[in-house]
C-alpha cells in the first residue's frame, strides 16, 4: 500500500488494491521499469516557413534534412509506436504542418487512440485546418507565442506574423481544440511576460509554458541579441509566480527556472520515459545532448528503448554533462551527433 511499492510487484500483496503513487513526471516513474516510452516527441521535418533567432533545431526555409524519413518509413515508425502502446506523441519540427503527410500522420495516431500534441508556430491555422484538427481530436495544439506585441514577436520570429499567429490561436479555440502557449524569453521580450500570459488566457489557452532559452541551434549565432540578464530572469520568474496564482484553476501557468546543467544532472539520475525522434529517424537521448541512441531505419522500438536505458549509463554522457559546468558553450555542438 505504500506509494513507493507501486513499481515493485513483489512488495504489493496480490489481493490488495493499492492507490497510485503520488503524481510524478515520467522521470520519477523509473523509465527502466517500463516496456516502452510513455512519450515520443517527433520532429517530423526540419523544414520551416520561419527562421527564428532562437530555434534550437536550426530550422528554416530550405532546411529540411536531405535524408528525412519517406512516407512509408514514417508510417512504419508510427505503426511501431502504436503497436507498443506509446500513449502520447507530439509532432514538432521545423514546422510540422508543412510536412506533406501531416494530416494523414495525425489521423493515424488519433484513430489508433494515441494522444497527440502538435507544436506549431501557428502560421497554418486556417479555418479549414483548425476544423480538421478538431475533428481528429488531437489532445492539444501548442503554439509558440514569444511576445505580446507584433514588435517583439516579429523580431524573434523572422518572417513571422504576430497577427496571423494570434488569429490562428483564436480559430483553434473557436473550433474546440485545446490550446497551449509556449514562450521563449529573450532580453527584448521578457518585459512582456505578464501581458503574454494575459493574452494567452484571453485567447482561450488552457496552459502557458516557459523556461530559459537554450544556447544551441540558431541561438548560438544570436546569443548576444537574446540572452536575458540574471536580473531580467529574476523579474521574469517573479512575474510568472504571480501569474501562476492569478490564473490558478483557470489556466495552468508553469515554467522551469532550472538552468540546463541542473536539469541534465537531474535527468542523469532520472531519465524521462521520453524519446526524441529526428526527421531522419535518428533518436536522441534528450534534446539538450548530442547523443543518439537509435535509428528507426535500422532498429526496432524495443532495441532503441533498451539502448536508451544503456545510454544514460554511458560515461560519455555523464562526462559531457559535467563538462557543461565549466564550459556552458558545449551545447553549441548539439547537432554534431554522437552515436552511443
Amino acid at each position, binding site marked *: 500500500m505504500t506509494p513507493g511499492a507501486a513499481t515493485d510487484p513483489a512488495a*504489493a500483496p496480490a*489481493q490488495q*488494491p*493499492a*492507490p*497510485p503513487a503520488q503524481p510524478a513526471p515520467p522521470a520519477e516513474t523509473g523509465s527502466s521499469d517500463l516496456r516502452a516510452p510513455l512519450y515520443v516527441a517527433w520532429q517530423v521535418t526540419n523544414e520551416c516557413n520561419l527562421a527564428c533567432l532562437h530555434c534550437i533545431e536550426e530550422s528554416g526555409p530550405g532546411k529540411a534534412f536531405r535524408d528525412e524519413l519517406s512516407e512509408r518509413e514514417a508510417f512504419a515508425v508510427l505503426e511501431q509506436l502504436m503497436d507498443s502502446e506509446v500513449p*502520447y506523441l507530439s509532432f514538432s519540427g521545423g514546422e510540422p504542418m508543412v510536412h506533406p503527410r501531416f494530416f494523414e500522420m495525425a489521423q493515424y495516431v488519433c484513430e489508433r487512440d494515441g494522444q497527440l500534441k502538435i507544436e506549431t508556430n501557428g502560421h497554418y491555422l486556417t479555418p479549414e485546418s483548425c476544423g480538421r484538427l478538431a475533428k481528429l481530436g488531437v489532445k492539444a495544439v501548442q503554439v509558440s507565442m514569444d511576445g505580446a506585441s507584433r514588435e517583439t514577436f516579429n523580431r524573434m520570429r523572422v518572417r513571422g506574423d504576430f497577427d496571423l499567429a494570434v488569429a490562428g490561436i483564436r480559430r483553434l479555440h473557436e473550433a474546440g481544440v485545446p490550446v497551449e502557449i509556449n514562450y521563449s524569453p529573450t532580453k527584448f521580450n521578457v518585459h512582456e511576460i505578464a501581458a503574454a500570459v494575459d493574452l494567452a488566457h484571453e485567447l482561450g489557452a488552457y496552459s502557458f509554458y516557459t523556461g530559459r532559452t537554450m544556447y544551441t541551434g540558431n541561438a548560438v549565432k544570436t546569443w548576444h541579441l537574446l540572452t536575458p540578464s540574471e536580473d531580467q530572469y529574476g523579474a521574469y520568474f517573479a512575474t510568472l509566480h504571480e501569474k501562476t496564482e492569478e490564473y490558478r484553476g483557470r489556466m495552468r501557468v508553469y515554467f522551469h527556472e532550472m538552468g540546463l546543467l541542473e536539469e541534465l544532472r537531474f535527468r542523469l539520475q532520472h531519465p524521462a520515459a521520453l524519446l526524441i525522434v529526428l526527421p531522419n529517424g535518428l533518436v536522441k537521448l534528450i534534446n539538450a545532448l548530442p547523443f543518439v541512441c537509435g535509428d528507426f531505419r535500422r532498429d526496432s522500438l524495443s532495441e532503441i528503448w533498451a539502448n536508451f536505458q544503456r545510454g544514460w549509463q554511458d560515461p560519455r554522457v555523464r562526462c559531457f554533462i559535467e563538462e557543461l559546468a565549466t564550459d556552458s558553450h558545449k551545447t553549441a555542438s548539439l547537432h554534431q551527433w554522437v552515436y552511443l
Partner: protein
Amino acid sequence: MKLAKYTKFREEKFGGVLFETRSEKVYSLNPTAAAVVREIAPGVDEQQVVERLKARFRDADSALEREALTFLADLRQKGLLED
C-alpha cells in the same frame, strides 16, 4: 464510468501506469491497482467493479472491497475517472 479523456492506461510487468497527458503526470500502479483499472469500463459503476474483482480474488474480510472503493474514489478525485 471510464478513464478521463486525457488519461491513458498501459499494462507493465510491475502492474501498470496511468498517464494523465494534459498535466503529463504519471501514476505507477501495482498489480492489484492495475487489476482494478482493467475493470473500469463504460456502463460499469464502482460497485460492479468490486463485484468483478471479488469474483476473481478472495475477499474474506472485505478489505478488497474497501481498498478498491478508496482507490476508485482517489482516481475520481484526481480527475482520472469520469462518468
